[in-house]
């Protein structure tokens, strides 16, 4: 960015052990970069479990009738799959991994505002995730309520709902503390000269995300606490037999869980907004509008939760309000998409793996977002609510959105994190196989939903067989792509070629320091005098 940033002659953060040995140099370090990697590794561990559960479901659904598991096992599988994927993986995913690693660097700081709290958040995350995973194995059998824990079923089932709920509650704390840390960091630790409007988009999206984490998570916290109160003390908040209202439970649950979907997507959008300008060698188009739309999504996204409950018998007034707000919140997403494509215009595009992920992100995000519009309209929602169409929608957008951005981000910042390059041709092969499998896996779900196949069905009528076969085969193709990608990354982290400080020609601060960065990131805090993404 400017000449004030010097390449340090220090040891890199990976070599700097702080005098600790073995695993302790990881789990006792308060360096934001190491904590980011701690998250990466723990998330990846759970991710493998989540993927395995997903594949098991697809195998079960390959033919009508029982194939590899019974109804109880299937119910537990999608519940734990959903809980792991949502609470353990995509919510902490990008903010905790890349946010931790990059936020301080990108705003020119040495660390986050509260480094110890940061490490503490990771411990909480691990505790919560262990509780969730333990629910799989402990006493009464894995929970079988769906990740939404809808009352009153969740009070009646005899399965291990408690550990899963407590786990989710604890994870919420981790999320809140991370958000809090980031907010203070962004407000207080920006380098001199870096005004808010000179900040890159990724920190901006983290900023929006952090507010949602801070303000929405407590609601699910208290809801889960009420569920605990209900199960332990029989209070009766949501039990119709005692006058409680199960619909109120849904309100409270979605007041958090809808904004949560924007926790998942905003940082993903941020990562895409980093990748596209870098590989197009071009300033991001409409920076100001991308920033404003980020805040708009975070803000309006808070008020649309009711679109998950259109058939629950809400009042017409509420339906009207929620439906129209849902459509409004789609606009800022659209603005972003248009700006990304406009950034490519007259650029000088280098087709490297991160860019491939970013471009395919736009495609799958469009499908996910546009199917969201079908869901947001009342008439069509009534038809496809709780069918495979919804499952298609959210896999397209959660996993297509967040997942693709995650892979893009991994490849993009890989040289910075490890100081080594991944193997380009394997990475591209993996991407291609993954992408094809992906479309085959989730495309048919949309079709099945329109045909009326309900979700959370362990068995289905024969008329739905065809598309389900395609979908199951797609899952297998995709997983092979995933394995190629994963193996390539793991291998390259150790044996890849040495990377330069700025292999892609990026302009933001993280590219001005050595790869991997030194412990303190900067020898001297830089002074910023230019807008972000400036090429000339």
């Amino acid at each position: 960015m400017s000449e004030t940033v010097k390449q340090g002659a220090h040891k890199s953060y990976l070599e700097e052990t702080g005098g600790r040995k073995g695993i302790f140099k990881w789990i006792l370090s308060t360096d934001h970069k190491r904590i980011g990697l701690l998250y990466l590794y723990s998330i990846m561990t759970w991710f493998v479990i989540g993927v395995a559960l997903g594949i098991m479901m697809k195998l079960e659904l390959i033919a009508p009738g029982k194939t590899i598991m019974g109804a109880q096992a299937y119910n537990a599988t999608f519940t734990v799959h959903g809980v792991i994927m949502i609470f353990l993986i995509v919510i902490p995913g990008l903010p905790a991994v890349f946010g931790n690693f990059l936020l301080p660097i990108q705003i020119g700081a040495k660390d986050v505002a509260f480094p110890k709290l940061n490490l503490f958040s990771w411990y909480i995350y691990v505790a919560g995730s262990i509780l969730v995973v333990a629910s799989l194995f402990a006493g009464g059998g894995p929970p079988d309520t769906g990740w939404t824990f809808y009352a009153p079923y969740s009070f009646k089932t005899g399965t291990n709902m408690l550990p899963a709920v407590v786990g989710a509650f604890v994870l919420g704390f981790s999320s809140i503390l991370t958000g809090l840390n980031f907010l203070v960091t962004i407000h207080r630790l920006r380098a001199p000269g870096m005004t808010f409007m000179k900040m890159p988009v990724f920190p901006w999206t983290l900023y929006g995300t952090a507010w949602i984490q801070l303000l929405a998570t407590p609601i699910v916290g208290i809801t889960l606490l009420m569920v605990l109160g209900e199960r332990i003390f029989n209070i009766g908040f949501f039990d119709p037999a005692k006058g409680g209202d199960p619909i109120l439970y849904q309100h409270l649950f979605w007041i958090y869980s809808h904004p949560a979907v924007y926790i998942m997507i905003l940082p993903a959008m941020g990562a895409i907004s980093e990748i596209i300008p870098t590989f197009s060698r071009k300033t991001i188009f409409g920076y100001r509008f991308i920033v404003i739309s980020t805040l708009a999504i975070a803000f309006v996204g808070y008020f649309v939760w009711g679109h998950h409950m259109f058939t629950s018998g809400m009042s017409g007034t509420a339906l009207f309000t929620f439906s129209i707000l849902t459509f409004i919140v789609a606009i800022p997403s659209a603005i972003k998409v248009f700006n990304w494509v406009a950034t490519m215009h007259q650029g000088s595009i280098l087709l490297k793996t991160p860019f491939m992920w970013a471009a395919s992100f736009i495609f799958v995000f469009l499908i996910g977002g546009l199917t969201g519009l079908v869901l947001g309209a009342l008439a069509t929602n009534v038809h496809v609510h709780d069918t495979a169409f919804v499952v298609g929608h959210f896999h397209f957008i959660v996993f297509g959105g967040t997942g693709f951005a995650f892979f893009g981000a991994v490849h993009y910042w890989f040289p910075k994190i490890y100081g080594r390059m991944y193997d380009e041709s394997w990475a591209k092969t993996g991407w291609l196989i993954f992408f094809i499998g992906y479309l085959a896996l989730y495309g048919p779900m949309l079709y099945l939903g329109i045909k009326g196949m309900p979700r959370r069905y362990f068995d289905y009528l024969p008329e739905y067989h065809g598309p389900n076969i395609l979908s199951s085969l797609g899952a297998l193709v995709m997983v092979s792509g995933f394995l190629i990608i994963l193996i390539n990354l793991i291998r390259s982290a150790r044996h890849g070629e040495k990377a330069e400080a700025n292999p892609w020609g990026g302009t933001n601060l993280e590219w001005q320091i050595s790869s991997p960065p030194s412990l303190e990131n900067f020898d001297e805090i830089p002074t910023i005098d230019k807008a972000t993404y400036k090429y000339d």
Partner: protein
Amino acid sequence: MAEEKHHIISYQKLLGVLGILIVLTLLSVAITEIELSRWATIAALLIAGIKSTFVLLIFMHLRFDQRIFRVMVGLIIALVLVVIFITMLDFMFR
């Protein structure tokens, strides 16, 4: 940091606010005791609102802090109110 200049709030002021708060509390009890029907609740909540404003501004120093804090607190309170309002849109028009 250089920008910090701490405002010291005098004991008199704090005690004065405490006095007001106690009077308001008794007032709200009195109002609801003499039964003003539906308005009693609204009045009690209004008084609670005034009381909390005092606590926020004086006890919690908002009046003397950077503007950003006031803005944040205002927005958060508005957010909670809007969320309650939207939820009630469902229940009131069922």
